[in-house]
């Protein structure tokens, strides 16, 4: 169980432009986002002694970024092998490093040319090794194809409909319209959603996140040091990481998962809320990992915002809009802001808790939830100002 409530804080955020073609290297993107996060905190690169990232062989090592930033003594530089599930784990890893005395000020970043360079899930490997021997030969390859299988099971078990999921896509796009960082800012209607091109049933084009070039970074330090920095600290109330039995390495280890109508979130909820000392009812704004519309439903249910099966109804009636009881993905999420693999959700939560979110600001937001992951394993944070 989490034992470090409010002992650490996020004190800086940084990001690049999010685009379909950055025209530059992943190393440059990472370095730019990290430098921006450092200067946002009112620090200089000499103050940084740790870097943590996550990647699928599609990014640059933390040591390389430290070098590009001119950091001479990066006592802690770690690359986690993982996807969106690790987007909050990097923050927990930074805290662990500081708590252990390995570093004082740690940057967490994700950098990728995810559209113009290496595109996730588009494998052209015709030699199926390991667990993919039991998936790829059947034409089960891409992420949308993987997640659609989970979504279908929820539909079978609870009667979930596409139109219910469409509320997420429409709402997030509405938020993105107010976000200068967002790649997709043109509002969409439910008709647009329902008439979007079918990709892999039950998913249409607008159930599926963007592919993006870009990078973002957050700077983690102790609450003690945070007090003297430029911004109001965003305190980390708690964090949790994990999944259920047989979680494996997430994507196609779902072959061993028992009940595909639920995901990792059900297994970390108690640690997350117990560590924070608050519950779902206390959350003012939530940035939920939305590689697909459906993954938001599974996480709302798993984290106890509603009971299993109630998610599709829970998100209706304006509840998740900016003026609703639980504003969701106020930046537009992976569906409409950009696919910076979930770390962009943490950047947005910090914006909201600092009151820096401009026209999409949720008035008086004090407690924010961020989540990362959609299938067998994931991570989450509860943040406050």
């Amino acid at each position, binding site marked *: 169980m989490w034992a470090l409530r409010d002992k650490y804080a996020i004190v800086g955020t940084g990001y690049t432009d999010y685009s379909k073609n950055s025209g530059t290297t992943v190393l440059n993107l990472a370095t730019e986002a990290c430098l921006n996060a450092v200067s946002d905190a009112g620090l200089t690169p000499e103050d940084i002694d740790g870097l943590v990232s996550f990647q699928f062989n599609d990014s640059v090592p933390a040591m390389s970024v430290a070098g590009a930033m001119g950091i001479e003594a990066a006592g802690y530089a770690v690359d986690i092998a993982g996807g969106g599930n690790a987007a909050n784990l990097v923050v927990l890893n930074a805290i662990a490093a500081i708590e252990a005395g390995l570093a004082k000020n740690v940057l967490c970043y994700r950098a990728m040319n995810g559209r113009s360079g290496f595109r996730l*899930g*588009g*494998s*052209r*490997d*015709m*030699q*199926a*090794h*390991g*667990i*993919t*021997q*039991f*998936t*790829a*030969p*059947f*034409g*089960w*390859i*891409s992420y949308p*194809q993987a997640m*659609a*299988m*989970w979504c*279908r*099971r929820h539909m*079978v078990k609870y009667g979930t409909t596409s139109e219910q999921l469409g509320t997420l896509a429409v709402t997030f796009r509405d938020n993105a319209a107010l976000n200068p960082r967002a790649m997709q800012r043109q509002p969409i209607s439910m008709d647009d959603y329902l008439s979007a*091109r*079918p*990709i*892999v*049933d*039950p998913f249409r084009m607008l159930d599926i996140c963007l592919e993006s070039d870009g990078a973002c970074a957050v700077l983690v330090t102790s609450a003690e040091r945070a007090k003297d920095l430029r911004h109001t600290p965003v305190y980390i109330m708690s964090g949790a990481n994990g999944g259920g039995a*047989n979680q494996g390495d997430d994507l196609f280890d779902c*072959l*061993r998962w028992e009940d*595909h109508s639920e995901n990792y979130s059900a297994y970390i909820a108690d640690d997350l809320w117990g560590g924070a000392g608050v519950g779902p009812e206390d959350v003012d704004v939530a940035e939920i990992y939305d590689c697909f519309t459906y993954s938001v439903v599974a996480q709302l249910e798993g984290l106890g915002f509603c009971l299993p099966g109630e998610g599709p109804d829970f998100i209706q009636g304006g509840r998740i809009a900016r003026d609703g009881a639980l504003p969701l993905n106020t930046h537009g999420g992976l569906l409409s802001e950009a696919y910076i693999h979930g770390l962009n959700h943490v950047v947005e939560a910090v914006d909201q808790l600092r009151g820096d979110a401009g026209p999409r600001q949720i008035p008086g937001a004090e407690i924010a939830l961020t989540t990362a992951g959609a299938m067998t394993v994931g991570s989450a944070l509860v943040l406050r100002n």
Partner: protein
Amino acid sequence: MNSMPYNKPVPVPDADTEPFWSACREGRLSVQCCSGCGAKRLPPERFCPKCHAAESEWRDVSGRGKVYSWIVVRHPVPGDVYAGDVPYVVALIDLAEGVRMASNIIDCDPDAVTAEMAVEVVFEAVTDDITLPKFRPS
């Protein structure tokens, strides 16, 4: 056997999975059973996740099962590889013996697949070495 070279992903059997693919080549669907606790497992792996025994044996199963979940792929990925196959169905199938596996549902209108639909295995030789277990309504 197809006259055209097979251009889709093929399994590369390893020490753990070779018995599975050998059985398929002989027209048998076989699952790994732990010699320690008897748990059946698929995909195969060296150590039993339940009791950690390294010994296992292989048992043929009926090849009958029910659809647990399914998708209909309409946009091919990679595009050129699957362009001629869409729409096609990938399903998670619960075998009668209590093991789940992924495969294709063939000989069936993609829009007619339903949860709990009864299916049975059919074997499709795609290369000299590899035969894929697929399923059709039963």
